[in-house]
């Protein structure tokens, strides 16, 4: 228990960062929907996901096995995405130049 207390996050600060990141994403989307902006929004979303996983789902204090399980889940998600891209994103006619 004392170990958990030592690792307790500053939830309000993390929440503030998440809100600020959301505001930046919305502002970027309002400015443009070009590929660079989309990439920037995804990058911000990745940082947000990392913060949520680390601080609110407590991965920073979980044992290594749980972290490995989450990494496994992300790997599985990546495999699914790679498998879907040729069919669902690059289908002839749906996305030019594919």
């Amino acid at each position, binding site marked *: 228990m004392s170990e958990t207390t030592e690792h307790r996050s500053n939830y309000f600060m993390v929440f503030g960062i998440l809100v600020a990141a959301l505001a930046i994403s919305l502002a970027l989307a309002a400015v443009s929907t070009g590929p660079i902006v989309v990439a920037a929004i995804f990058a911000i979303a990745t940082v947000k996901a990392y913060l949520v996983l680390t601080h609110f789902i407590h991965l920073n204090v979980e044992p290594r096995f749980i972290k490995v399980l989450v990494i*496994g889940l992300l790997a599985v998600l990546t*495999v*699914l995405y790679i*498998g879907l891209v040729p*069919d*669902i994103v690059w289908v002839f006619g749906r996305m030019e130049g594919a």
Partner: protein
Amino acid sequence: MSHGEPESFVRKYIFSVDHKVIAKQYMITGLFMALLGGFLAYALRSQLAWPGDSIVGLGVIAPHAYNSVVTLHGTIMVFWVAMPILVAGFGNLLVPLMVGAEDMAFPRLNMLSYWVFFLSTIVIIASFFVPGGAAGGGWTAYPPLSGTVHASGVNWGMNLWILAVALEFVAFLIGGINIITTGINMRVPGMSMWDLPLFVWEELIASIVFLLAVGPLIAGAVMLLLDRSFGTGFYAPSAGGDPLLFQHLFWFFGHPEVYVLLLPALGIMGEVLCAFSRKTIFGYRTIVWSVISAGLLSFVVWAHHQFVSGLDPRLAFPFSVTTILISVPFAVHLFAFIATLYKASIRFTVAMAFTLAMIALFMIGGVTGVINGSAAADIFIHDTYFVVAHFHYTLVPIVFFATFSGIYFWYPKLFGRLMNEGLGWVHFAGTFFFFNLTFIPQFALGLMGHHRRIANPQIFEFLRDGQGLQVLSTIGVIGLLAAQVPFVYNFFASMVRGKPAGRNPWEATTLEWATASPPPHGNFDEPQTAYRGPYVYSPPGEGPDWIPQFEPPAEALEPDTAISETAS
């Protein structure tokens, strides 16, 4: 997590938190659903053998009702028979006992898991009785057939199907987390991961695979429900959607699901083989690594179900390769089992007979799977009865032969008695013969071009010559169902008339045999310790031909017999 023994009937037998009671609840619900799924098999086979005739016990099946019968047969057998019996039933009964725990890690979650599953069972049965009938989009629920009401004529039946499957997944997610936590965290002192019985390993990997695979299908099912009920267009090309997306999401879960079912079955086989061949399992660590690698590979094979779906041709080759590759760990697995039998002192019991038959039949399923895995061959045989025969040669041995083997073997731990072996042999002989009579003709029918979802094959001239095979296969399924009568009688009669079993009637080595039959509340009279690996049979020297995992060591014998020290 410790909890006292309940006093009232309701807390003891209905809303119980005892893993053994929950195991019985899962098994009995699963066996009841197997009767329902079996009746649907009889109905659909009768329609194919004698199209349009009135079927005894059901009447005439209209073409759209035939779709519902086929859909619910597959759905029930996979989700309401295989999952509850193999994963939840045996998992609940054996994982805590085998690791020496007094219960599951989260007993109340365990109870919640069963009752969510029970609710899903009510919902799927209720779907037969709503206007329009039960879901008719196949057990894979592909849109557009499942995506709109007008495609199949089924409205609430399909909605309830989605709801029932979603509830079922919730139940098994809760159960899976429980199994993983129990298997890893609640091992007795002295039991390293390399001292776990094979069954526990296989349940752990199966639960992790299920955990990782089920998310996309839940998302896919929600999108399907939104398409049907709220006018979205995730799978509707007219709205910019794509029905192929659902196929991807379904099979990304669906193929790992095959291994979620297979792995516990292989675990049961491993335990039964060792006990009745009186030999240490051949290649324990190799088997475990092959299970882990199969679990990983199971996530990169899914699109082999979609070779004729309009899949990007560039995907066909890699998925062909991975599909053929995944047969390797299972070949290793079966080879290890066969090697375990080599020069063994085999005891022929009914449980052993079902396990041996499973090896033989599963190999036929495996070999025909390699044929399907080749994209070129699959284009010809896709969706034909060849594929139907193939997956029944994999799933029936997994789901039924392994289940029967496990029930005959662990019946003492369920009810404290032994099942009648004579009736068991009648059950085994009938099941083995009629299973083959049912499905061998279907290979030939498939190669003739018989598509799996047509209600009347006689309307196609090229299938008329196969009508004799249709009748033969249908006689097989009727015999297969009849062969279960001795089992059902034996299962219930042995609860009161069976010979008292004692703690360890099979002279087996794992921790569940250390306790009374049936185990008391809390499982063990005193805390257990694991002194060696799980399969020390026929050690060198005089004395008994087994040394239980829970028996304190005889100093001279110990260094040579611990699997954890000798396995390479």
